[in-house]
């Protein structure tokens, strides 16, 4: 579910990575009015910017060496300040991982919306990434379980007996089924390498 949080914007720290320019005044003013602690930076984002709650960056003249993190891996919501709508610049702005955008010249309109939208997209991206990592882990665990069951089947158990054995093993070791399967498979492959390796102590 997409949530818009309006809390905690007061005193939030924002960095604006843009060369000093009069067209930035309305953005800086509006961020002050909204209640943010605003810092201008150019040409480099200082290391302390990793602690910022928001970073605005110039999509026209900035380049990735100015950022203390890898493209797409910002630890906070990013907002692109777009002047040129040329596809190459836009692609770069997206590669950096913009969570929202503002068109230059920036007026007071759209700044608050960009903050909330960027944070919402940032939260959602992180939640999705965590979810994917979890699913990948479970997906690869399923393969391991099948392999572990096969080990028992190869030793003459039926499939149902093999599953039951795996379950009992996990219980005896006080670990999850996935973890037990992983250990069984690891031991089995080392057995194949040397015959006198330590055997799995089956219950």
């Amino acid at each position: 579910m997409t949530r818009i949080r309006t809390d905690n914007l007061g005193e939030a720290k924002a960095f604006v990575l843009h060369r000093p320019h009069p067209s930035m005044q309305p953005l800086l003013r509006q961020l002050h009015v909204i209640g943010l602690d605003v810092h201008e930076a150019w040409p480099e984002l200082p290391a302390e910017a990793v602690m910022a709650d928001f970073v605005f960056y110039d999509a026209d003249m900035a380049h990735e060496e100015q950022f203390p993190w890898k493209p797409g891996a910002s630890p906070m919501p990013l907002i692109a300040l777009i002047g040129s709508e040329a596809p190459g610049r836009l692609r770069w702005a997206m590669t950096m991982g913009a969570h929202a955008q503002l068109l230059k010249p920036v007026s007071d309109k759209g700044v608050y919306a960009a903050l909330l939208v960027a944070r919402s997209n940032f939260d959602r991206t992180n939640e999705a990434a965590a979810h994917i990592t979890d699913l990948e882990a479970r997906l690869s665990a399923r393969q391991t379980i099948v392999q572990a069951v096969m080990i028992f089947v190869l030793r003459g158990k039926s499939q149902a007996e093999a599953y039951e054995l795996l379950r009992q093993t996990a219980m005896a070791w006080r670990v999850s089924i996935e973890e037990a399967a992983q250990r069984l498979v690891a031991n089995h492959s080392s057995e194949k390498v040397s015959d006198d390796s330590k055997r799995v102590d089956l219950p």
Partner: protein
Amino acid sequence: MKRNIEIGLLHSLSGDYVALAMVARAGILRGVAEVNADPTLDVGFSVVERDPEGRLDRYAPLCRDMLQNAGVRHIFGCITSSSRKEVIPELERFHGALWYSTPYEGFEANEHVAYMHSCPNQHLLPLVEFAMPRFGTGVCLVGSNYIWGWEIAQIAREKISAMGGQVLSDRYLPIGDTGLAQILTEIQSLQPDFIINSLIGESSYSFLAQLAKMRAEAGNAEMLPVLSCNFTEGEISAAGAGADGMYAAGPFFEASADGHGSIAEMSRLAVHELAGYLNANPGAEMLPLTDLIALVAKQGRALRLDSENQHASQPVVIAQLRAGKFEEILRLPALAADPYWTRRDRSSLPLPNLRVVS
């Protein structure tokens, strides 16, 4: 000798919210008359008026006409947020300023607008802080189905849950609709400790009347207290006896029963505010609003407007409608506007120190 400055007046003389517009207009005209009669001011105003007739599409062209053809820089007008949003691009294009004196939902701070009434940290939040300890924590929200109703409900929901309360229901009714049966049945069964009413016009009057009937039938005049941030003196006669007992928050309540209320008063004060800025500053009427405010602030004059967000600092008054007249219950000193609700800790009220007048 006074120098004469033409100012614009942009209020609808007909349409859905004509009652509020007429009240605001009367306040502006009174302010103009007072400024013109004041010998200590070196400025006088004459009024250029346009009537949008309550039609949203007419606001922008009429605003542009005044700025472009009538030589006006400062316009007093607009009741609804949607009409304000309509004129802002014209103000930006032609360097105009809008003096807006209606309570609104916040989340805006345009350099071309002087927000002379109040926003939620000056009406809704103190009202919830007043009501929760007094009435209880279960709340029903009812509002008209447009931005005011939605945003008031959104802010109320956040505030109520932050204070440990619970929103029992949250219902909206199309503007002008009086089909309230379902909402009232729900309220009857939920029995909330209080109700926040953001309905406007006829919907609101009908809602208040039917709640009054429910109280009479139950023989309990104290049950289902109603709170509102948009009910003003101008509506007392239209709402009738059903509105009695309701609580309202605002920067000002009229002491006399026939008064116009806060929208008229803030409109009147807006005219005085501009006159004060322009007095002894020849030519200053041509400055953009931000520069004018900066100039006056530098001269050390007293400003109602915050020079950063251009919202007026306002006292918070909570009043109860008793026998057709608002009686002040509680008054807090002038509070700076926080249109984006980002100074939450600082804006929360020191409850134990409240002075209660009843």
